[in-house]
C-alpha cells in the first residue's frame, strides 16, 4: 500500500464501522504551537486513531493495519514502528509476510533508519534461514546506490549473525569491476578478509590482498581507497608495510609516474616517521620529484621526511597547513 492507494481508496476512520468504538485522540500541541506542520486531513485522522490504540496498548489485527497506514504517511515515526513490533510479537504474525511489506516500502525510503532497523529485527527473529534473502535484498539496493550506508551495515550484520559468507569476496570483486573507487566495497572487503570464518583471517590473507591492492593502485594511483586498504592490511604499521619490497616498488613506480602521487607520499611519510629506511630506488624517486618542483635546496640525507612534507605542501595545497604541521611533528630520529 503506498500513498497513492491511500488517496484514492481511502475511507475515513470515522466511516469505518470496525473502528466505531474508538475515540480518536488529538495531538496535544498546546495553545501556542511551534514548528507547526500543516498536516493533511488523512494524516491527522490516522494519527489521532493511532494515539488512541497506542495509549490503550491495543495489540490487535486492526491496530496492526493502522500502524501500516501510519507508516505509509510517515515512515520516520519510530513510535509507530516500535508499537508495530509489539503487536507483531503479540499476534505471533508470520514474519515472512512482514518482510514482504518491508520490500514494498523499501524502494521509496532507501535511507530511513526505522525501516532498516525493523528489517534487522525481523531478520534476527527469522534466523539463519533469512540470510540469503537479506543478502539478495541489499544487493538490489546496491544496484541503485552502491554506497548506501544503511544497506552496508545491514549486510554486515546479516553476515556476522546469520552467516552466508561464501560469495562475499567475489561480490566485492563484482563491485570493483563496476567501480574501483567504491570505498564501501573496499571497506566490505576489509570486513570479509578479517572476519570471514571461511578465509582464515588477516595474517593468512595478507599476502594475496597486497597483490590485489597493488594492482588496483597501479590502475588508478589517484584512487585513495586502495591506499587506505593497504595500510589496513598492515594494521597501520607503515614501516612494516614499506619494508615489503612490493609496496616500496609500487610507491616508487607511482612517484616516477609524475602525477597522482599524493597518496604514495602520504604513506611513505608515515613510514619515514617510524624510522623506515628507504632503498635507493624509492629514495631516488622522491629526489626526482623534489627536484622537479621549485623547492628549497637541501643536501642532508637525514631530512628526507622533511623534504616529503615540502613536496606535499606544494602538490597538495588544500592540505598545506596539515603538511606544515606534519613537518613540525617529525621525530628527531627521523630527521
Amino acid at each position, binding site marked *: 500500500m503506498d500513498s497513492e492507494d491511500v488517496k484514492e481508496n481511502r475511507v475515513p476512520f470515522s466511516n469505518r464501522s470496525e473502528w466505531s468504538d474508538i475515540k480518536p*485522540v488529538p*495531538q*496535544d*500541541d*498546546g495553545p*501556542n504551537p*511551534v*514548528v507547526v*506542520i*500543516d*498536516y*493533511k486531513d488523512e494524516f491527522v485522522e490516522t494519527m489521532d486513531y493511532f494515539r488512541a490504540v497506542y495509549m490503550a496498548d491495543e495489540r490487535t489485527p486492526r491496530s496492526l493495519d493502522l500502524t501500516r497506514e501510519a507508516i505509509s*504517511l*510517515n515512515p*520516520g515515526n*519510530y*513510535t509507530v514502528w*516500535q508499537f508495530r*513490533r509489539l503487536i507483531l510479537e503479540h499476534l505471533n504474525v508470520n514474519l515472512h509476510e512482514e518482510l514482504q511489506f518491508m520490500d514494498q516500502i523499501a524502494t521509496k525510503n532507501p535511507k530511513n533508519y526505522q525501516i532498516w*532497523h525493523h528489517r534487522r*529485527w525481523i531478520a534476527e527473529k527469522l534466523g539463519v534461514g533469512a540470510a540469503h534473502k537479506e543478502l539478495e535484498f541489499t544487493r538490489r539496493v546496491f544496484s541503485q546506490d552502491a*554506497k548506501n*550506508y544503511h544497506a*552496508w*551495515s545491514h549486510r*554486515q*550484520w546479516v553476515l*556476522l549473525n546469520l552467516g552466508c559468507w561464501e560469495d562475499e569476496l567475489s561480490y566485492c570483486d563484482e563491485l570493483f569491476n*563496476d*567501480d*574501483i*573507487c*567504491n*570505498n*564501501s566495497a573496499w*571497506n566490505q572487503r*576489509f570486513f570479509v578478509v578479517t572476519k570471514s570464518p571461511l578465509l582464515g583471517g588477516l595474517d593468512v590473507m595478507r599476502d594475496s590482498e597486497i597483490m590485489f591492492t597493488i594492482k588496483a593502485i597501479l*590502475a*588508478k*594511483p*589517484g584512487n*585513495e*581507497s586502495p591506499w*587506505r586498504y593497504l*595500510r*589496513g592490511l598492515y*594494521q597501520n604499521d607503515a614501516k612494516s608495510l614499506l619494508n615489503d619490497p612490493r609496496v616500496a616498488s609500487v610507491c616508487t613506480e607511482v612517484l616516477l609516474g609524475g*602525477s*597522482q602521487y599524493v597518496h604514495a607520499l*602520504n604513506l611513505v611519510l608515515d613510514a619515514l616517521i617510524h624510522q623506515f629506511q628507504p632503498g635507493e630506488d624509492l629514495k631516488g624517486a622522491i629526489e626526482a620529484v623534489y627536484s622537479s618542483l621549485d623547492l628549497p635546496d637541501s643536501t642532508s640525507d637525514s631530512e628526507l621526511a622533511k623534504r616529503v612534507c*615540502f613536496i606535499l605542501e606544494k602538490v597538495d595545497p*588544500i*592540505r*598545506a*597547513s*596539515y603538511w*606544515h*604541521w606534519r*613537518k613540525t*611533528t617529525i621525530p628527531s630520529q627521523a630527521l
Partner: protein
Amino acid sequence: MEGNGVATKSEEEQFAVWNQVFRIYDLVFGLPPHAQALHFEIRRDNHVEYLTRGLSQMGPGFSVMDATRPWVCYWVMHSIALLGDCVSDKLENDIIDFLQRCQDPNGGYGGGPGQMPHLATTYAAINTLITVGGIRSLTSINRETLYGFLLRMKDSGGGFRMHDGGEIDVRACYTAISVASILNILDHRLIQGTGDYIMRCQTYEGGIAGEPGSEAHGGYTFCGLAAMVLMNEVNRLDLPQLINWIVFRQGVEGGFQGRTNKLVDGCYSFWQGAAIAIIQRLRSTVMEQLGLPLSKTDFSQEGAADSSNSDQEEHSEPESSVNDICQSEVAGVDHNGDSFIKALQEIGPLFNTFGLQQYILLCTQEEAGFRDKPGKSRDHYHTCYVLSGLSICHYAGTRNIDRPPRTQDIMGPYSNLLEPVHPLYNVVFDKYQEAFRFFSSPES
C-alpha cells in the same frame, strides 16, 4: 582522482561536481572587485527570516518530519544564535512550552507530543533549550527522569539504543553522552563500556563508523570523537590516523566529503571541521601518541608558508599540562566539556579554513538558507550545519575562545563573523557558559 582509462561512476559524479563548483568560482573571481564582494557577504537578514518562518508553519510535505520536530527547533534556534540574532520572547516561551510537551514523564524527549522519548530528539531538545537560555528554559529540563531514560537506553555491550527497542550506534552514544555532560549528570554508570564500543568503531581508514565494521563516516567520526573527549577517553583512539583521514576528506572544491571517494556536502563543514577543531585542543594527547615531547609549540597562524616553529603573539609557554584534560587531576568525568573549551587551541588550523569558507559562501549559500551543494535545495538542517562549520572556520585560528578572530581569518567582510560554538556540543559558546554555570550550581 583524475582517471587513468575509463572514468568510474564515482569519478563521473566527482567531475560533475567539480564542473559546477569551478564554474561558480570562475564566474565570481572573474567579476570586478566590487561585484565580487557581494557574493562573499552572508545574507543575514534573509537567513534569519527563512529560519524564523520555519518555527511557525511548515507545509504538508513536512509531515515526514512529524517525528523530528525538536530537531527543527534546534536547527533554527542554533542557526539564529550563530548569526548573533534572536527571536521574540513569545516565540522563545512557545518553544519551551512545546518541548515541555515533548518531554516524557519517565524522562527524555520524543519527536512530538505523545511520542516515545528518543536520544536524538532529546539531544535536539536540550540543545534548543540551552540555546534559548534563561531560567524558565533551563528549569524546564527534568534531569532526574532524563538520567533514568539515558540509563535505560544503555546496552550491555556499552553502546546506547536510540529509543526503547531502537538501533544502537555511535550517534546514540554521542547524543546520550553529550546531553548528560552538558546537564552535569554524566557518571561512570553511563560511560561504562561506551569507550570500548566507540573504539571498535574506528576503522582501518582512521575515521569512525556508525557500528563496528561499517565504513568511516564524517558524522559518526564527529560523534565518536566528541563522546570520547567528554568521557576523558580520547587517548584510546588512534588520533594521528584519525587526523589523516579527516584532512583527506577536504577536496579541491574546499568543502568536505563524508566518506572517501564520495561527494562534497555542506553539512560536513561541521561534522569534519569540528572534529578537527576538537583535535586542535588535544595537542598533549596527540604529541603523546606521536611519541614526541611537549616542549616545542607548533601553533602558527602564519600557516604553511612559514616552516619555522613560530610562537603565537601573546603566549610564550604553552600551558598544556594544566589545560589538557587527559593529564589533569580532574577525577571522573565532571566538567570535561568545560576543561576542554577552556584549554588553549594549541595546534593551528589543520584544514584549509579559507577553502571551506569559500565553498560555503559561494556554493552553499542561497538567497536565504544554505544547501548541500549547487543543484540541491536548501533546508534547515544544512543551514544549521553549514553555519556551524563556518563558525568553526572563523575560530580555527584563535588560541583562546575568549579572543575575537583577526580580520584576516574571516572571508568576506568582518561583519560575516559568527558566534563561536562549543565544538563538543555544537551550542553557541555564551549559551553553553550560561548552562554550565546553571547546572554546576548546587541549587539547580
